[in-house]
């Protein structure tokens, strides 16, 4: 199954498991967010990524520039394991 099939299934699942009024609130909130201009003002291709140092799961500080010395970085922001 392709990624887009998986995502379509996820969207259907969310739609079916969430009561319609809650689903409407969630969809509306996503649309509001998309319309707020945040996507356009976020960092885009061609921008310089800010250097940062953050702790990993074990509390050890990890810096972007240290990782970049080894090669390119695929940096993924997500909301949480939930």
């Amino acid at each position: 199954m392709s990624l887009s099939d998986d995502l379509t299934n996820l969207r259907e699942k969310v739609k079916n498991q969430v009561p319609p009024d809650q689903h409407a609130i969630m969809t509306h909130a996503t649309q509001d967010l998309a319309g707020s201009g945040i996507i356009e003002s976020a960092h885009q291709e061609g921008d310089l990524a800010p250097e940062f140092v953050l702790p990993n799961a074990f509390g050890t500080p990890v810096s972007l520039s240290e990782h970049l010395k080894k090669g390119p970085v695929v940096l993924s922001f997500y909301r949480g394991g939930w």
Partner: protein
Amino acid sequence: MQLALPRIEELGAHLVAVSPQTPHNSVSTAQGMKLTFEVLSDVGNHVARQFGLVFVLPEALRPIYEGFGIDILTANGDETFELPIPATYVIDRDRKIKMAFVDADYTQRVDPEIVLSALEELREGRQPDPRC
């Protein structure tokens, strides 16, 4: 993205995931999801803010998430309900962003093939085509 991890590493790159969860909560995530890449704690969303990705979860949504058993206050260790918009970046060794995928809809994910193409083009020393 985790499935693409071997190919990402073959291309000389590393996957780094960032969330506002505290390190303790990240470990639970890491163990639960059997992650084999770096998971970083951006408590307070300071780095996400520098990338322009931070939004506040609307009040109308908060009881809905609680109803799903998601406790954002505990997971993130702060009371702001600030979250990052999901985003994936390919960053080159000179810290330039070569590919950016930013979407307000959390059910949309970047296609790993786009990430891999960008990495392949970096390897070959060319500019990635954003139209791909």
